[in-house]
């Protein structure tokens, strides 16, 4: 058995115990130096022992800006524009670091997001590494906010699944969480987990925004959700929202759908995803089976 195969089996967990999934906020993780970052993240993940760990959005920009590689860090837009031409080179280090970390810990690691430049276009993209350290999937953000369009980002036009060795996962990048087409396309292709790399600014109704986002996508699609939200102040913005591991309502003891969430100063939310629970939830509220495509016809284009 190769190390990758061993890691895959360990990560998937399988059986009655299920895979342990963790959503991290990066709160308290040192980001001003890539070595410190790797050390802190490695210690944290070794303690949690997840099979799947998901980091929030803007990890790459956060690390680049915090490491002193950017000069225009007073505004998010300014930092973004300065980062764009440097992204390809920075990504070599960013991706290598997370690939090595995934391999070292034998886990699936969604490394958050960076800017991907291809064919003169710029995409906001999440990357996932497997337990052998290999790149096993990436996902471009498919829906853009007005600000993201003004910053020159392009939309991805594909939604693919990543096989975690027994259960399939789709990545939901940033604002895609508020567009239910994304979760539906992924779920109908067979996704059992929606992993979200998010970054919401602190506001009076942040939780309501999250309920309208990943929580709603999970409930509509009978799947698990691993929602990583950035908790940092950088480049003039205060990002702060709840990290959570979500399931169909009835998989949580209080029927909230929250298997675990941050809110009391924790650095991550973690929980085991038991497929038997999800199957039972689908029987009690078979949302996908009761879809009515005849009523949609061509009206969703």
């Amino acid at each position, binding site marked *: 058995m190769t190390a990758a195969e061993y890691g895959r089996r360990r990560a998937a967990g399988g059986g009655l115990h299920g895979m342990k999934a963790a959503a991290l906020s990066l709160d308290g993780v040192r980001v001003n130096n890539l070595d410190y970052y790797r050390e802190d993240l490695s210690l944290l993940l070794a303690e949690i022992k997840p099979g799947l760990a998901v980091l929030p959005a803007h990890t790459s920009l956060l690390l680049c800006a915090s490491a002193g590689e950017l000069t225009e860090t007073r505004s998010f837009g300014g930092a973004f524009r300065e980062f764009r031409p440097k992204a390809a080179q920075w990504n070599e280090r960013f991706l290598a670091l997370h690939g090595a970390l995934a391999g070292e810990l034998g886990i699936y690691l969604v490394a958050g997001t960076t800017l991907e430049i291809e064919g003169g276009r710029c995409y906001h993209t999440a990357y996932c590494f497997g337990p052998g350290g290999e790149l096993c999937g990436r996902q471009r953000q498919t829906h853009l*906010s007005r600000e993201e369009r003004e910053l020159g980002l392009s939309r991805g036009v594909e939604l693919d699944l990543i096989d975690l060795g027994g259960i399939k996962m789709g990545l939901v990048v940033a604002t895609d969480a*508020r567009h*239910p087409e994304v979760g539906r396309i992924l779920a109908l292709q067979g996704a059992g987990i929606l992993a979200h790399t998010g970054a919401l600014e602190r506001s009076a*109704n942040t939780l309501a925004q999250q*309920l309208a986002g990943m929580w709603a996508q999970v409930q509509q699609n009978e799947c698990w959700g691993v929602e990583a939200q950035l908790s940092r102040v950088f480049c003039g913005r205060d990002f702060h929202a709840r990290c959570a591991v979500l399931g169909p309502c009835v998989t949580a003891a209080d029927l909230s759908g929250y298997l675990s969430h941050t809110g009391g100063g924790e650095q991550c939310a973690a929980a085991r995803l038991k497929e038997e629970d999800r199957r039972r939830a689908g029987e009690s509220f078979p949302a996908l089976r009761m*879809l009515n495509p005849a009523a949609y016809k061509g*009206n969703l284009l």
Partner: protein
Amino acid sequence: MALNGWKERLFRRYLFWICRPSRVKKHLAGRIESRRALPPLDGRKVRAAALQLEARLFKNPLDYVDAMHRRAREAAAAGVHLAVFPEYNNLPLLGILPGVEQAGEAAEAAGGAENGGAKGPVISLEDVIHYVSPVLKPLVHATFSTLAEAYGLYLMAGSFLLSEDGTVRNRAFLYGPDGRLIGSQDKAHLMPAEEQFNVTRGDHFEAFETGLGKLALPVCMDASYFETFRILEKMGVEIALLPIANAEPYNYWLALRGIWPRLQESPLYGVKSALVGRVPGFYFTGRAGIFAPMELTPDGSGVLAEVASSEAEGMAVAELDLDALQALRQNHPWRDRNRALYARYFPAIYEQIPG
């Protein structure tokens, strides 16, 4: 039904007689004390009422008419242009059938009608609907048409289990302030229990241009699917009138799976009415309310008004600013459409539906 032959025919004629529209209209004429015209609109601001009705079986159909009248009058007194009644709003009328209460109790003992208990050997809800539907349709129409006209209301009468072409439909009706039937909508997404009752689902959504703006009538579970509200938004609908009747103990999170997130995904206003309480075989809970995109509520909650109790009667009233809705749609901070993505996956992706 246990009756057959001439007894059955005689009993059916009796039901038609006690439910005849002329009797309903005469009854209401004697009770409507002051008529009201539709209040003028302040710009494009619509005042709406979401009604929460307590379920009970009425042995006398005129008691049902009185109950609907009382709620319509309350809504009119609150100065609304629009009032919304709940799902299964003909269920209370099944009380006119002798033995229904006992059959419901038997079904409840067998696990509740909503869990299929009513399909036991005593009586099936499907058979009851086929039997009684021709009697109740004219009564329902006479009741809500008269009330809408008398109180100058756009009145969504709720949804009704009806027999049509040998199948059962869960159909919502909208009446205008002139008493005219504006249109109807068949529920398109069913609960598993409705599948067991052989309810036939609708295969399209309707939008109705009215003096209040463009309205639609999705029914209960239709609000658990983003597809419904995407289509309504595309049709230009501004207010969705949603009747519900949830046959389960109330839980905030379970209830949250309905209209609220749909309005955040597709900017519309939503007026949700609820049937609550117990009738034999069913235990309904819910909280009627008026909801909006978060950006259009002062506290950012997406809730404009909501009935406090999940088991008692109530009414939620709020004003809906349709100009503000249009402005939000035209200048939304984060919404986007990715037509290349949708064209790649829709509609073929729906062939993957499990089961």
